[in-house]
């Protein structure tokens, strides 16, 4: 059933790309391919913006955080209440206007003309391509993971996985990748690369509209199902108030009855602990060797809430004569161990941080981050250059405000309730969204609906990856080749090169993510913080302060990016993990904005102003 849903979904995506290709044929290739001829209307603009913003992080990483830390995630995401106004309104009108005056298709090109400086344009191109590639990698991984979860258990898919495994065995780099992941990555990447290459910006926008609708419907359906299945939201919140975080333990497993051959227990299996009082969930697969021996120690999750424990016990097969014995002392959360109420109050439980998940300074950081980092993303900016007129912008703002309210707050409700319906998901929290979709639809007797609900996160990833792909290829073709290498390139040459670059960037992204980083969400935050740091303040100064100089722009962009890189490097050196260093508990994005602002202001003041001609062109009464 899931496979059929996917087939239909992908068929629609390709159909839209085909239509977009036909519509765009009569228009100038470069402007049409990268910016839809700057004529994107209300529905398309609003939903392409919203769908690009709601990436894989919103539908995979965010639910897993809600599940793990509880109601405090409502505070973490609270900044979204003003995102439609700030992220859409802060720059859009001026950006669109200046883009048209400059005749620009891309952000670096717009900056190059605004300051009449090749250096500013080149630096912007470099920064976009550099940080955007991290985004691309993260989304490719997220897409492949969702697909793998969805297709798990489908016989055709399992056969294909075996085929891929034998075909790639022994190949350098590729052969070491997990076969199921590799297969899904390739299918996902080909789909996105083909429709992006074929349809360009217009196809990306149109598919975003469809994906945006799928996401919205998915969330509403899940909300209705979850509230009815937990017996009302109030009931769920009171149950959550009684819960204590699980503990992590190492266990050995033995069978009371002798086993003739090795018995393999999959990851996620529920077992009683010897004595029958406690229950655990396996964090990795375990094997009980034949002849009645015990398994090697494996990681497991120990449930600590009595009501939850009783519910799980009823699900464990009484005839299963297999029990676990603890091989280590249970290890609790650094904040929240044996403490009731942690899932309904701030700062929320945390496994490592003794101060909990969300302190007030971090809450402030995220309130700023969602709004201003969002406003500073080139993938959103390029959309702001594409809307038709200001009525389109104003109405889109209203639409996006309703849309985000419909998505983000309900997600918090859905996945706090998930703790009631799905205990023990801490062993693989990133899978909570697809698991919830399956459980909710099965409980409601409509399992066919699971395909649509899981299509929502898939749509989110797809709509983001296509935008990033286009942005990176536009940077290479328009800003490097056409501006610096061959300004007289014919439309045919540009067209051919664009297709080659879009495909090459996609293939390069696939190779780079064959062995993906462990922390997907961290990678997304790093890339968006980096782009926001490089472009937010420089763009505000460029659009709103006539006195800004080219040297100040370079200093603002460079210093913003550098601060992010340095604070991440310090974080890595301290923890040996891909983690940022939070000076005074503030996210590096905040520091980058401060440093970038100071550089922009003081360098502008100390370097010669732009020419009157240039100022008149972009700020004067007779803007042309």
């Amino acid at each position, binding site marked *: 059933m899931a496979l059929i849903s996917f087939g239909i979904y992908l068929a629609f995506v390709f159909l839209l790309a085909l239509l977009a290709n036909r519509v765009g044929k009569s228009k100038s290739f470069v402007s049409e391919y990268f910016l839809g001829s*700057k004529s994107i209307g209300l529905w398309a603009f609003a939903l392409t913006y919203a769908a690009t913003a709601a990436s894989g992080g919103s539908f995979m990483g965010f639910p897993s955080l809600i599940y793990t830390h509880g109601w*405090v995630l409502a505070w973490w995401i609270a900044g979204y*209440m003003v995102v439609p106004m700030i992220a859409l*309104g*802060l720059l859009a009108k001026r950006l669109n206007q200046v883009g048209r005056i400059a005749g620009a298709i891309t952000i670096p090109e717009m900056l190059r003309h605004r300051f009449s400086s090749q250096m500013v344009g080149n630096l912007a191109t470099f920064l976009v391509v550099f940080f955007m590639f991290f985004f691309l990698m993260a989304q490719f991984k997220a897409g492949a993971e969702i697909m793998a979860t969805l297709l798990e258990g489908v016989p055709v898919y399992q056969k294909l996985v075996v085929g891929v495994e034998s075909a790639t065995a022994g190949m350098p780099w590729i052969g070491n990748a997990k076969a199921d992941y590799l297969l899904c990555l390739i299918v996902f990447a080909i789909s996105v690369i083909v429709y992006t290459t074929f349809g360009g910006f217009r196809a990306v926008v149109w598919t975003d509209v469809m994906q945006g609708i799928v996401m919205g419907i998915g969330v509403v359906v899940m909300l209705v199902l979850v509230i009815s299945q937990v017996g009302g*939201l109030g009931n769920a919140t009171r149950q959550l108030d009684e819960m204590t975080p699980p503990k992590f333990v190492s266990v050995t497993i033995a069978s009371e009855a002798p086993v003739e051959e090795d018995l393999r227990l999959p990851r996620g299996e529920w077992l009683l602990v010897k004595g029958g009082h406690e229950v655990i969930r396996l964090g990795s697969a375990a094997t009980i060797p034949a002849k009645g021996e015990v398994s090697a120690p494996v990681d497991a999750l120990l449930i600590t809430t009595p009501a939850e424990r009783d519910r799980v016990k009823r699900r464990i097969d009484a005839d299963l004569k297999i029990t676990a014995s603890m091989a280590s002392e249970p290890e609790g959360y650094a904040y929240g161990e044996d403490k009731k109420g942690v899932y309904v109050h701030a700062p929320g439980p945390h496994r490592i941080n003794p101060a909990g998940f969300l302190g*007030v300074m971090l809450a402030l950081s995220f309130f700023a981050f969602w709004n201003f980092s969002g406003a500073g993303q080139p993938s959103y900016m390029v959309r702001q250059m594409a809307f038709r007129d200001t009525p389109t912008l104003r109405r889109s*703002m209203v639409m996006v*405000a309703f849309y985000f309210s419909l998505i983000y707050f309900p997600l918090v409700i859905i996945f706090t309730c998930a703790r009631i319906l799905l205990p023990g998901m801490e062993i693989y929290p990133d899978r909570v969204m697809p698991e919830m979709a399956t459980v909710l639809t099965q409980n409601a007797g409509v399992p066919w609906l699971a395909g649509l609900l899981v299509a929502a996160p898939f749509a989110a990833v797809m709509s983001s990856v296509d935008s990033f792909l286009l942005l990176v290829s536009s940077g290479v073709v328009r800003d490097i080749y056409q501006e610096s290498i061959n300004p007289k390139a014919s439309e045919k040459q540009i067209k051919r090169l664009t297709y080659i670059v879009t495909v090459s960037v996609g293939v390069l992204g696939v190779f780079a993510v064959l062995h993906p980083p462990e922390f997907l969400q961290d990678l997304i935050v790093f890339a968006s913080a980096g782009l926001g740091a490089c472009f937010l303040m420089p763009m505000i100064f460029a659009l709103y302060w006539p006195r800004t100089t080219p040297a100040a722009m370079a200093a603002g962009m460079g210093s913003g990016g550098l601060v992010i890189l340095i604070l991440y490097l310090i974080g890595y050196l301290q923890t040996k993990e891909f983690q940022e260093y939070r000076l005074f508990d503030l996210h590096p994005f905040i520091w980058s904005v401060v440093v970038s602002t100071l550089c922009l202001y003081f360098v502008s003041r100390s370097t010669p*102003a732009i020419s009157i001609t240039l100022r008149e062109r972009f700020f004067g009464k007779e803007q042309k």
Partner: protein
Amino acid sequence: MEESQEGSIEEPPVEDLAASFRQSRKEFWFMVMTWVAFAAWTLGFNFLFAKGEEGEAVEVVFGMPKWVVFGIAIPWMIALGLTIWFAMFYMKDTDLGHTDEEYANEKGDA
């Protein structure tokens, strides 16, 4: 591409700036102040009330913890209303210039 700095200016007088630019700048400051107001509300309220009292059962309003309702849900609804008002009544329409399609049509007409 670098333009001569000859004839460069310091701060241009306000009256020399385009009306559309001045309107956009006014809207920009309104948005910044909106962010400050809502940040102050949610951060201030939740700093004081989101932690809860040790050993006390959570107070539930509309199915949610009370601090979520007053510290997030209500400001969220107000922000939604304000966004609608801002977009429909405060933000002014501006002539942004020609789209590529309009350029193409004009060329065609000519």
